């Protein structure tokens, strides 16, 4: 199961925290700090897996699966029951979807449109489980939500 998904910038600032272990807020911050401490030491041409058992809030069997894009680290923390490469692909799908949505996504999009980022991620991973892997399906779901958001509250909602 996926324990959390974190987007952290090159200075260690969190840009998205999605935690499925129900940590307290200080624990989340500590987790971000510790993950960044581990990842920032790594160069870009090493492998995308790292043991995350040393992170205080994670159990020993935790693995960090991450990608580094420009100014952002996209990190998935998972236990041993997930396919490592599968999760790496999932990060790619998530980023590709953000890219489609924001047309060349950059850090500012994540900062100012964290609502949209949350919505997209909710369509990819839910409660620590992979929900959808098709970029098109994810976009369809997000667009449907967006359309509803634009309608006035009084309008009858029919799907």
């Amino acid at each position, binding site marked *: 199961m996926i324990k959390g998904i974190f987007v952290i910038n090159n200075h260690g600032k969190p840009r998205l925290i999605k935690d499925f272990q*129900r940590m307290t807020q200080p624990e989340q911050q500590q987790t971000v700090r510790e993950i960044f401490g581990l990842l920032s030491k790594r160069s870009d041409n090493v*492998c995308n897996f790292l*043991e995350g058992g040393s992170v205080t809030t994670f159990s*020993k069997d935790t693995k960090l699966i991450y990608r580094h894009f420009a100014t952002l680290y996209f990190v998935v923390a998972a236990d041993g029951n997930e396919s490592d490469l599968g999760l790496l692909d999932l990060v790619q799908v998530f980023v590709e979807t953000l890219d489609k*949505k924001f047309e060349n996504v950059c850090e500012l999009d994540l900062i100012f449109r964290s609502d949209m980022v949350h919505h997209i991620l909710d369509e990819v991973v839910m*409660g620590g489980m992979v929900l*959808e*892997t098709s970029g*098109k399906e994810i976009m369809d779901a997000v667009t449907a939500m967006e359309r*509803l958001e634009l309608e006035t509250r009084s309008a009858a909602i029919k799907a």
Partner: protein
Amino acid sequence: MAQSLMMRGLTNYITELRASKNREDEEARVDKELGNIRAKFTAARLSEYDRRKYVWKMMYTSMLGYEVDFGLSEVLNLIQFPGFKDKCVGYTAATVLMSAASDTMPAMLRAMRGDIAAADPMLQCLALTASANFGGSKIADDIGDTVRSVLFGAMVPTAVRKKAALVLLRLFRVKPSLLPVPDYTSRLIDMLELPTLGEKQAVLCLILGVLAKNGVEHFAPLLPRLITMLNAVAVDSHADPHYVYHKVACPWYRVRILRALRHFPFPTDKTVQVPLTDVLTDVLRGTPVTKSLNHNNASHAILFEAINIVIRYGTNGPASLRERAVEHLSKYVNIREPNVRYLGLEGLTRMASLPGTREQVLRQQKAILISLKERDISLRRRALDLLFATCGRDNAEEIVGELVTHLITADSAIRSEMVLKIAILAERFAPNLRWYVDVVLKLLAHAGDHVSDDIWHRAVQIVTNNPPLQRYAAVKMFQAVETSMAHETAVKVAAYILGEFGFLLQEPAAGESATGDADDATTVSGSKQFVALHQHFDRVAPESRVLLLSAYAKLQHLYEAELDHVLTPIFEAHTTVLNEELQQRAVEYLSLKAQSDDLKGRVLEAMPAFEERESVLEARLKDTSKTAKDVDEWGKEADGAAVAADSPAASAPTPGRAKRAKGGAVGPDDESSSSGNEAEPAAQEDEDILGLGGDDAGFMGGADDAFGAAAAGDSPNIVASRGVPSGSLGAVRTALFSFLDRGRTRAGLFADDTVQLGAVVEFRGALGRLRLHIVNKSDGDLRNIEIDCPGTDAVATSIVDVPDRVPAGERPALEIRFKCMRPFADLIPITVSFHSGPMSATVEHSYALRAPVFTTSFLEAVALPMDALKARWGALAGEPKAARATVPVLRDPAAVLRAIGAEVVQASPEHGALGAATFRTEATNPDGKKISVGCLFKVSPQGSETAIEVRSQHGLVTRGLVNSIKAAFAHGVGSA
């Protein structure tokens, strides 16, 4: 379009925060904003727009690390509004800001349940997502049933069904009763027919969760189905184009199918075997490593899942698949692309545990050593694991040598792990013990900081238990601390070893200890040893100084003339130091000087070997096994009225029954007998009442076999096995028997550095309850927890609330219930097993203990008049109803009776004590009354010892009581 949704106030706030020059600026801005929001929330009117805006501001602020501890009722308001927009923000905010303990939780759950059952799929989706992100048992109790009926409902939109499946999985994990097997098995399998790939994936995910929890027992029809599904994608290649990922057809779907397949053992049915082998062969045909990273990842994700299945099948699967898998992995450990290399190393590690593959894996040793020296810590760790897994007696010197060499230059991130693994390998595969000592010395020299207490304690233990090694170890430790640069850990080990075995250095080696080595001729005087040790005294920590003081005391005893004048002042100086421990030692050692030589000798004599056995107990158990033939009269016991029914005829042996009792190991169900067997021989042969768990059993001998057996289990990543170390057996026994004092209800049964097992007991009549606390002392999860307490035909057991994992620092309790059905004299085995450490390097723990349940546990005090007691006493003469034990003189003869739960009928220090009790069982006689056995006790002082006589209607009860009383005295219970 997207930009139009931005809330201006929110954007401004974020912009201002980003413009903060420093953290103080930012804090000031946050404080101001939170104050503002608080004020707005208390104002009379607040538009929905503003409410949403403020809640988003709160979420953003929280992500930056500021505490936001108000406004949950506004979040709840948003959820309760009918509008989609409000609910959308409300649910997202709830998962970010609300804790399960929040007051608003019940109201939120009500709203959530309503939305999940709503007719509007968009609302259903929102509430389902939130409930999945929340998880937890509260949600499972409250909305689990609703989610399940949504999942299995007719005409459910795809988006809703997908989400419902995953929510149900999350809730099923905390509440398995939501999907009882086999009730839902066929419905789950049928859902794999759903039209969209998204739904199929979600249902597969749910099925995987159920298989992980319940096994494949009721899922036989799933296996052929999975094969068909895999063929449909892989062979027919008419996959949904939306699921083609970088030119790979639906990789996640295929990974999930393969994961589900992995739960099944290799089928024996040929009609399944053949298509399964075909489809796996097809996947294992492999894919070239291309330039596209994403394509590589996806195609290899599938391949590695197939390899995992092959590893899971082990030698039961077709050899052709195994060869193919090893071939792939061997190739991968040699390639440059780090992700595939990483997984290749990981796969080979698991592969190496299969019989017959080790040789093939060893061929890659050169490549593995290259990875060990990589810059990337992830690759180094995997390489280390793999070397560890392939190390054997034949290549131990080479591999350990490589690891030690690398240790010198390795960075600190991996050194502790390396030190531990080197120490384990050196112990497990040492060609000779001197080599082992040499390796430990190298560890101390190159990585002293990383040699943890348990590693050097273990080394000391091995030296202590192997006399021919002691002199060599003493020479080496002396040499190690002769230099002023010695590491503190080396000083500690030297203090211990020289304190114990330094005297061997007076003369050259002789006999068994001599191997013709140059070191054999080395002799070192006591004062030289002292000087070598003492040069470090001022720079080491107090706990190390304590060890040094103990070593000095031993040296002083041996070399009194030579060292007295130097050592006495040192002890004197330390009688006034602030450190209590140091002070106490100094005072003790000084006062010891004044004692008789005999006492000194006893206090300071060499430590006994760690593998001590309690010969007293052994003898006792041998004693009891002699009478094992004349049981078992049970079933003829007359009456429930305790002591009242004591007709002599009642104890006539019944042959039929006796057979059943003796066949204890062949219980009514085979399962319990197979697990009981392990403990049985120990009890029968009276070797060791605790059974020798742990890795001491065969150091240098059978240790690797024991490890091999563990590694061949389900989990191929097991790197070590732990049990009760023989050095702890004494403590374990003492803890166990401390429960003979009925006043004692709690004690620690066992502890090592990973776990502490605490017991709380409660007995009432023939029923008992043991709450077993599993305290996780490690810093990771304890997984796959299994408690094996099969019971005997005298004491039935049932186990409830076994957690499947224990997170670090937690201490959940499970409960074992005991029901006494007939007399017994043996102890009840209880085995606690689990896994710790990372999945890739799992340590398997299995502690064979005994339950703190004795004949005395089921005793109830009986107030019997003196004359009635005397009359019965006479009626119960002769073996096996009567038996006696002698124990040391007692200050209070009645104390022992009270301790085991008997009523003291009469007591005086001169004449001893008389007591009565009744042994309760749940068995019933033909009249439906519960059977009990009356028991009488007599404690009489007899000069230099005390005799304790036990009489009961039932020989086995008598024996059980005598055993208990003896054990109580051996462990200091009731002797006060």
